[in-house]
C-alpha cells in the first residue's frame, strides 16, 4: 500500500464528520398585503452583563417524599392575558395551586390562584379566537382543560370551556393550525409510564393513551384522530419535516419509546422516522434557526451529565446502570442532546457534537434563544432531578445540578457562567420571553419544590426585532405562521408558536437578535400558506404585522 492509498480513507473519515447543508425551502403561494406598526422598545436599565434573579412566590409542590413521576414537575406559560402589552405568566402546579402572575411592570407580579389542579403543561393561547388569550392545561393522569378568557382586563377572570376532548390522557400538548382553516387544533400525548402510579385508573383502559390530534371544527368542537395508541410524550412540536410546505407533528418520548413523527400528506398523517439520531429520553423540543440558513433546526434535550468528573459519574451511575431497556441494532437513540438539521436527502442530521451541545445534565425545558442579541441562538437548559426511587443515597433524594447556559459564537456552544444562570434549583418548565419590553429575553423557571425564579436580562446586548402577527378570524395570533428575516449577515427563520420546551408555552412572537445584521426584508408565510413581504423592516423594536384582505 502506497501513501496515497493510506491517506484516502483517512481523508474520507475526516470529511465524513462534516454535516450536510440544509436545503432552502422555497415559499410559494398567493401574496396578500399587510400593514406594519413599530413600537420602540422600553428603555432598559444600565446593563451589567449578567442576569439578575427575582424569586416569585409560586412554588410547584409535590407530595414528600418525592416519587416518580410527580418528580416531573410542571410547566410555565407566558402570554398577555389582560391586553396591557406585558406578558403575564401561568405557573402550573401539581400538589399546590396553579398561579396566574399578572405582570405589573418592573418585574413585579400580582399572583392569583387558578382553578387548575394537578397541572402538567400549560399554555396561554387564544383557542376560541376572540382576541383574548385563553389558558389551556393538561393534568397529571388526566386530560386537557381549557379556561376561556372573560376579557376583564382590570381583574382577569376565566370560565371553564364546555368543549370536551373525550376520555384522553394528556401530558404534553401543542396548539397549532394544521389544516390552514385558521382554527387552532391541538395535539396531545400521554405519558404511559405514569399510568400505574397516579390519576384515575378508569382512564387507563388503553383507549385513553397515545397521541391524539383534535381538529377544531367550525362550531368550536374538536374531532379526534388517534395517531398512536401509546406514548411517553414529554414534548410535542410542529415543523415541516419533509419541506412540502405543511407542518408535521413530532412527539418526543421518554425512555426507550422512540420519538414519533407524522408527515401531513393531504388529509392523512403518515408515520416516518427522519432523524439520524434522537435523544434516548427526549425531555424537550424546541425549533428555531440555529445555523442562520433561513430554515428550522430542532433542539431535542436528553439526560446526560455535563461533566464526567468522578463525583458526577458516581451520582449518575446507580440510575444509568438500571436502565436495561432493549437496544435494537438500528436504534437511533443516543443518551445525549440532539440538534437536528435537515439534509439534502430530507433526513435530519444531528450536529450536537459538532457544536458542543450534547450534554446539559438531567435536562428538562431546554430552549434556543438569543440572550445577548448577537444574532446567534444560545441555549438555556434547566435541569436536576428529585426522586426517592432514583437517588435514595443523595440528600433529599435530589440530584442537584447547575442549570446550563451555553453561548453560541457561530461555531460552537460554550458555557456562559458569567451570565449567572447556573442556579441549582430543580428546574422543570421554562420560558424565555421579554417581560419588560426592552428587547431582551428574560427567563422564567418553574422549579420543583423551590420558588419559581425570574431572571432579568441585564446583558449589554445588541439590537433585536420582535415580530408579532395579527389576522382576522379564529386564529388572530397567526399561530403556525413562519417568518424569514433577511439581514445583511444572514437569513433567519422563525415560527409563531405558543408551544416551546418542556410542558411550557411562550408568547406568540418571534424574537430576532440582530447582532451586526441590518434587516432588509421580512417574508411572512401565514398559516393558510399565503405570503406577505415587508421591505426594509425596522432595525429595532416591536414590529406588529397586520394581515390585510386577500
Amino acid at each position, binding site marked *: 500500500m502506497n501513501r496515497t492509498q493510506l491517506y484516502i480513507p483517512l481523508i474520507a473519515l475526516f470529511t465524513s464528520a462534516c454535516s450536510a447543508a440544509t436545503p432552502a425551502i422555497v415559499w410559494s403561494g398567493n401574496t396578500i398585503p399587510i400593514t406594519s406598526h413599530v413600537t420602540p422598545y422600553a428603555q432598559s436599565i444600565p446593563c451589567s452583563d449578567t442576569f439578575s434573579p427575582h424569586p416569585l412566590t409560586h412554588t410547584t409542590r409535590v407530595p414528600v417524599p418525592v416519587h416518580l413521576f410527580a418528580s416531573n414537575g410542571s410547566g410555565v406559560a407566558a402570554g398577555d392575558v389582560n391586553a396591557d402589552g406585558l406578558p403575564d405568566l401561568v405557573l402550573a402546579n401539581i400538589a399546590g395551586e396553579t398561579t396566574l402572575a399578572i405582570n405589573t411592570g418592573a418585574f413585579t407580579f400580582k399572583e392569583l390562584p387558578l382553578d387548575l389542579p394537578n397541572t402538567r403543561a400549560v399554555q396561554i393561547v387564544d383557542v376560541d379566537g376572540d382576541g383574548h388569550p385563553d389558558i389551556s392545561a393538561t393534568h397529571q393522569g388526566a386530560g386537557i382543560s381549557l379556561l376561556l378568557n372573560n376579557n376583564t382586563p382590570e381583574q382577569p377572570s376565566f370560565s371553564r370551556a364546555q368543549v370536551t376532548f373525550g376520555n384522553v390522557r394528556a401530558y404534553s400538548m401543542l396548539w397549532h393550525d394544521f389544516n390552514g382553516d385558521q382554527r387552532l387544533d391541538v395535539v396531545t400525548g400521554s405519558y404511559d409510564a405514569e399510568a400505574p402510579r397516579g390519576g384515575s385508573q378508569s382512564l387507563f383502559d388503553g383507549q385513553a393513551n397515545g397521541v391524539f390530534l383534535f381538529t377544531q371544527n367550525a362550531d368550536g368542537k374538536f374531532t379526534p384522530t388517534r395517531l398512536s395508541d401509546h406514548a411517553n410524550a414529554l414534548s410535542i412540536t410542529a415543523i415541516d419535516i419533509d419541506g412540502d410546505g405543511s407542518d408535521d407533528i413530532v412527539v418526543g418520548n421518554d425512555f426507550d419509546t422512540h420519538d414519533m413523527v407524522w408527515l401531513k400528506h393531504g388529509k392523512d398523517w403518515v408515520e416516518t422516522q427522519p432523524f439520524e439520531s434522537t435523544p434516548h429520553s427526549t425531555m424537550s423540543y424546541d425549533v428555531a434557526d440555529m445555523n442562520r440558513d433561513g430554515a428550522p433546526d430542532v433542539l431535542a434535550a436528553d439526560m446526560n451529565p455535563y*461533566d464526567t468528573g*468522578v463525583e458526577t459519574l*458516581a451520582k449518575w*451511575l446507580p440510575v444509568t446502570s438500571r436502565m436495561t431497556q*432493549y437496544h435494537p*441494532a438500528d436504534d437511533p437513540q443516543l443518551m445525549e442532546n440532539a440538534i437536528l438539521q435537515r439534509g439534502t436527502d430530507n433526513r435530519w442530521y444531528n450536529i450536537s457534537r459538532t457544536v458542543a451541545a450534547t450534554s446539559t445534565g438531567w435536562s428538562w425545558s431546554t430552549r434556543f434563544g438569543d440572550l445577548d442579541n448577537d444574532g446567534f441562538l444560545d441555549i438555556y437548559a434547566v435541569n436536576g432531578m428529585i426522586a426517592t426511587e432514583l437517588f435514595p443515597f443523595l440528600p433529599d433524594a435530589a440530584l442537584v445540578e447547575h442549570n446550563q447556559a451555553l453561548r453560541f459564537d457561530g461555531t460552537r456552544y*460554550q458555557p456562559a457562567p458569567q451570565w449567572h444562570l447556573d442556579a441549582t434549583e430543580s428546574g422543570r418548565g421554562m420560558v424565555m420571553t421579554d417581560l419588560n419590553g426592552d428587547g431582551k429575553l428574560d427567563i422564567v423557571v418553574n422549579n420543583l419544590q423551590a420558588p419559581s425564579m425570574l431572571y432579568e436580562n441585564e446583558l449589554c446586548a445588541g439590537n433585536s426585532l420582535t415580530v408579532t402577527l395579527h389576522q382576522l378570524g379564529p386564529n388572530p395570533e397567526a399561530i403556525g405562521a413562519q417568518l424569514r428575516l433577511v439581514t445583511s449577515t444572514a437569513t433567519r427563520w422563525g415560527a409563531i408558536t405558543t408551544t416551546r420546551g418542556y410542558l411550557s408555552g411562550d408568547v406568540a412572537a418571534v424574537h430576532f437578535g440582530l447582532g451586526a445584521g441590518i434587516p432588509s426584508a421580512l417574508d411572512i408565510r401565514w398559516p393558510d400558506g399565503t405570503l406577505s413581504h415587508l421591505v426594509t423592516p425596522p432595525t429595532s423594536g416591536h414590529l406588529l404585522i397586520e394581515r390585510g384582505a386577500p
Partner: protein
Amino acid sequence: MTTHSMPLSASPQPASVLGYMIPLQRRVAIAIGGVALAMGILGLSIGQPMWRAALPGTFLFSGAVIIRWYYDRSQYGQLIALMVALLTFQGGHGVEHLTQWVQYHLLGYTARASSGLISAANSEWVHFLWNWGVLLVMLRIYWLGLRNPWAYLMLFWTIAHTSEHTYLFVRHLEVLQMLRAYGEPTITAQGLPGIFGNDGWLARSPATAGTWVCTFPGLTTATRLDVHFWWNVGETILLMIAAYTHIHRSPQRTAR
C-alpha cells in the same frame, strides 16, 4: 536448549497453531474443543449462566495453550513460544470482544448487558490486569528480539491501550469509593467512559469541545464496547503481522 528453525507453514496464527501439531495432538485438540463445546451446551441447557457454561472450555483452552507453549519453547525457543501463546490468548480474548459486539449490535443487548461469554470476567480489574499482562509479555518479546516496524507499532498500540485501561481503572476505583460513601455497595463502576469513544475524555474535554475531534468517527463517537473491540482487533492483527514479518526475516529461515 536446542532450538529448531520455524518452518514457514507454521506461521503462528491462531487458526494454524493447533494445525501444526502432529496428528495425535490435532486429535487431542479437536477432542478438547468438542468436550468444551459439549460442556458449554450442557451448562446452558441445565440453566447455568453463560459465564459458567463457558468456564470449562476456557480452562481446557488455557491448558492446551500451556502444553503447546512448553512444546514450542522446546522446539523453537522462548520468543516463538511466547508469540504463539500471546496470539492464542489474544485470539481467545478477541472472541470475548466479538461476542460482546454481537450481543450489542446484533442481539440488541444494552451496553451493560453485552458482557461476552464470561461476563464475570468483564470487570475493570480483569481488563486492567489482562492488558498489563499483555504489555509485559510484549515487552519480553521485544527484549527477546522481535524488532520490526510492525512490532514497534504493536508496542505503541499496546502501550496506548494499556494506558486507557489504567485511566479507566483509576477512575473505576475513585467512582467505586464515592459510591460506597453514598451507601451503594451493590452498584459496580463498570463501563465508565475512558479516553476514547463517546463520552470519553477526548470527546468531553473542554480543550476539544466543538472541534472536529469530537465528531471523528469512532475515535470520539463509538461506544466503549466498540472502542475496546477495535483496540483488541488492532492489537491482535499487529501482533500477527509483526510475528509473520519476524519469521520471514529470521536468520534461521534465511539459512534454510
